[in-house]
């Protein structure tokens, strides 16, 4: 019996170690598959938690798992955490394609947060050899980022390159027309011009920005206060008129100029949004 004890213990140890390893491997696969199912179902928080668990226990293809975790956080609109995992995926991966996906994901995160300069900085890190779908995405993101920074020339080039990669050459001319229109109205609404105009003639800045009702309102208010000051200076004295009306007059005179600047800026942003919608319509596939 003593002769058999040692081999028996050895066999038991071997069996337990191998089975434990199998169990561990199965368990990680199950965790990843469960996380994948939760991702498909839209339970992104749970999916991220399970993917994190898989990474913690040393699952293979960590770069891909980090990419999935980043997408989970992206879908929950936690862009800062999503960026962290895109970074982790980038540094954990030796594959250019996964690195590119991580960079594109991070750039898109920044665009959704209106951080256009960081988005462009990310896009600069991209490999020169990209797949067509990655070229489309990279150019599209670059176009939006440049458009957000009012760099219309670069935005036009990026959007046109995107259309060319999509094989929609017939839309390139339409894109050029859209950007020509942007250049035309681009100088039309200058907030500083509106401000100066309103200082010269109250209400004229509002008219310049296309706000007729506000222009009449501003003219009536400042005109009324001016009339009151003349009336008071005739009836009493110039000093009393200044003392009583000037504080009100300066409020509505300067307020009108500030509002004219705001309306001009809003008009610019409204036109820009309309152009942006047109550009997106052009980019949409029929």
């Amino acid at each position, binding site marked *: 019996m003593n002769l058999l004890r040692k081999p028996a213990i050895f066999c038991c140890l071997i069996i337990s170690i191998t089975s434990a390893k199998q169990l561990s491997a199965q368990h990680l696969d199950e965790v990843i598959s469960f996380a994948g199912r939760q991702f498909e179902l839209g339970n992104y928080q749970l999916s991220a938690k399970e993917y994190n668990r898989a990474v913690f226990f040393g699952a293979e293809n960590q770069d891909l798992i980090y990419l999935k975790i980043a997408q989970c956080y992206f879908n929950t609109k936690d862009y800062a955490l999503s960026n962290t995992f895109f970074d982790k995926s980038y540094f954990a991966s030796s594959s250019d394609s996964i690195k590119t996906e991580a960079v594109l994901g991070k750039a898109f995160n920044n665009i959704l947060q209106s951080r256009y300069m960081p988005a462009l900085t990310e896009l600069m890190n991209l490999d020169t050899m990209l*797949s*067509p*779908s*990655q070229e*489309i995405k990279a150019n599209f993101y670059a176009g939006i980022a440049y458009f957000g920074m009012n760099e219309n020339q670069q935005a036009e080039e990026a959007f046109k390159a995107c259309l060319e990669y999509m094989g929609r050459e017939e839309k390139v001319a339409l894109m050029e027309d859209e950007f020509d229109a942007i250049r035309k109205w681009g100088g039309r609404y200058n907030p500083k011009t509106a401000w100066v105009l309103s200082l010269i003639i109250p209400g004229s800045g509002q008219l310049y920005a296309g706000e007729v009702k506000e222009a009449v309102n501003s003219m009536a208010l400042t005109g009324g206060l001016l009339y009151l000051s003349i009336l008071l200076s005739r009836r009493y004295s110039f000093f009393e008129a200044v003392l009583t009306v000037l504080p009100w007059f300066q409020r*509505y005179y300067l*307020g009108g100029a500030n509002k004219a600047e705001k309306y001009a800026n809003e008009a610019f942003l409204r036109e820009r*949004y309309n152009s942006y919608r047109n550009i997106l319509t052009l980019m*949409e*596939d029929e």
Partner: protein
Amino acid sequence: MRKAIITCTIIQFIKTNNLVRIFYLPILPLLFLCFPNVAFSQLHNDIKQVEHLFKLEEDADYSIHLKQSKNELEATASLLFLFYKEFISSQDIDACVFYPSCSVYSMECLSEEKNTIIALLKISDRLMRCHPLASPASYPIHKKTGKLYDPVEH
């Protein structure tokens, strides 16, 4: 996403493998044609997500106070408030140090406070506190406007 990763992996294989490197250029368009919907569907999703960018925020709808007024006093106050907002405040400098502004605070106070006397007392208190020397240490800062945050408290 899965399709994109497959496409990327195949492209990576082509790029790193010397044997198929010479077929790289003819293979790439073929590969693209194999998954024509990948790029477009992904771009379509991206377009949906960036639609709201550059959109102007709409101004607050103050007429809601008039619609929700429960009696003649509230309706009159709402009308006066609307007139002030539309014709006077719209031309004024941004002088109020608080968010929401004193006029909005007054309307909210009148509509939310059951006791009109207490509402009027609260409004008077707010108007007295609204001056350029109001202590920033006493109020939280409203992130969007950078003003002192002082909403109606119950």
